[in-house]
């Protein structure tokens, strides 16, 4: 219930943070919202010699629009995403997803960057970001800044392509076209726990046909994953329920789900197409319950 002793470092600027992380790596853990690291530390599952607290670095905060993109600081809280009027107007998928994360108290602390860096299979916001087009995760390290297309961020369960001496500074999200319709869906066993599977859908339609589709899911692979085969099956297809459910059957092959005490891999593989279809149908304004 208590952590091992660690040295605590609190940078007051981004430059200081990058320098500290560079010097202390690899035996350093970055403290963002504490939703993951707080638990790992207190259960002694993580025993870093150093902890760098990013909560007082002003350059990592904020959500703003810059050049047709939304700039989201790594330390933007999930609550900030949930309550952002800017995002509600321009990227509604993100507040919709954010509002389902845990509970209000946790959302006041857990961060966008923290979720991305932890790369958990069931992470919600990272999955939603994966579904959006052109999202870039920006990292900074001793060798400078590095943009990482989000498709290249997640490597394995709890492993990203970040180097041990890098930290995420912000995420840029191109504003989706006005015709893009989105939905976020969870399948929970119980609300305050990790979802069994979740799906994010970003769809454009034109007169009963799907013109573009991006579908990402949580809980169906070691990390959040985009379902490219499903997307291909959806594009240029009809928007009716039967067709969409037919298209998402490809999700079962793309899935490589984890097994845990709540559900087996087999179960997750089986329901993945259902959730994917329902998310797509909800995005395009149907109920999604038929299949």
């Amino acid at each position, binding site marked *: *219930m*208590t*952590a*091992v*002793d*660690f*040295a*605590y*470092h*609190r*940078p*007051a600027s981004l430059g200081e943070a990058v320098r500290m992380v560079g010097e202390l790596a690899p035996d350093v853990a970055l403290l963002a919202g*504490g*939703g993951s690291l*707080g*638990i790992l*530390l*207190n*259960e002694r599952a993580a025993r870093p010699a150093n*902890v760098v*607290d990013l*909560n*007082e670095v002003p350059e990592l905060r904020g959500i703003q629009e810059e050049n047709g993109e939304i700039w989201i600081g790594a330390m933007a809280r999930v*609550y900030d995403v949930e309550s952002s009027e800017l995002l509600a107007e321009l990227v509604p998928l993100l507040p919709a997803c954010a509002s389902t994360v*845990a*509970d*209000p*108290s*946790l959302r*006041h*602390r857990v961060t966008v960057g923290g979720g991305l860096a932890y790369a958990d299979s069931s992470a919600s916001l990272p999955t939603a970001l994966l579904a959006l087009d052109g999202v870039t995760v920006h990292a900074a390290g001793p060798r400078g800044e590095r943009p990482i297309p989000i498709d290249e961020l997640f490597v394995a369960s709890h492993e990203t392509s970040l180097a041990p001496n890098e930290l995420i500074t912000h995420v840029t999200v191109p504003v989706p076209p006005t015709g893009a319709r989105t939905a976020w869906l969870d399948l929970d066993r119980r*609300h*305050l726990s990790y979802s069994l599977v979740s799906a994010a859908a970003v769809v454009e339609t034109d007169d009963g046909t799907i013109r573009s589709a991006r579908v990402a899911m949580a809980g169906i692979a070691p990390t959040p994953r985009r379902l490219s085969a499903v997307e291909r099956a959806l594009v240029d297809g009809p928007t009716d329920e039967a067709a969409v459910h037919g298209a998402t059957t490809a999700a079962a092959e793309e899935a490589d789900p984890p097994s845990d005490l709540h559900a087996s891999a087999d179960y997750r593989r089986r329901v993945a197409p259902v959730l994917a279809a329902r998310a797509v149908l909800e995005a395009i304004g149907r109920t999604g319950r038929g299949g």
Partner: protein
Amino acid sequence: MNAKRTNRGSIRIVTSVNGAALEREVKPRLRLTDFIRQELELTGTNIGCGHGVCGACTVLFDGQTVKSCLMFAVQADGHEITTIEGVTPVDGLNEIQRALKANFAFQCGYCSPGFVLAIQQLLDRYENPSEEEIRFALGGNVCRCSGYVNIVRAVQQLARERVRVGA
């Protein structure tokens, strides 16, 4: 501000708890809940699960509810903390506490300080919350005794009263 290190591996923090400014030296790994309960002897905040689920450890951090078991005392440096003791009048009960009592909301009481703060946050944010919004907002506070029915009733009553009073 930078963390002010002392010779013994402790960090000096300057914080405000329930409106009172104070200065302490804390070890980095000291949990915020332990700081509140042991160092400051404010035992109204309780430890339930210690891993961010039950909300018995809820306090306000710069006015926002947080689960203090997932934070460290060093993080309080430069910030304001409010505990249940900070929202309770010297004598008697505040409006939220009165409504909870009148509605038989709690039984053993272990979770109730956390709920009082969560309810305060919810009423500050929502003017006329639906039942679903209330349940959603309280979804991070576990009560094992009550089944939540009367807690929700109390919040609905409070919300109605606030609308009436024009709060």
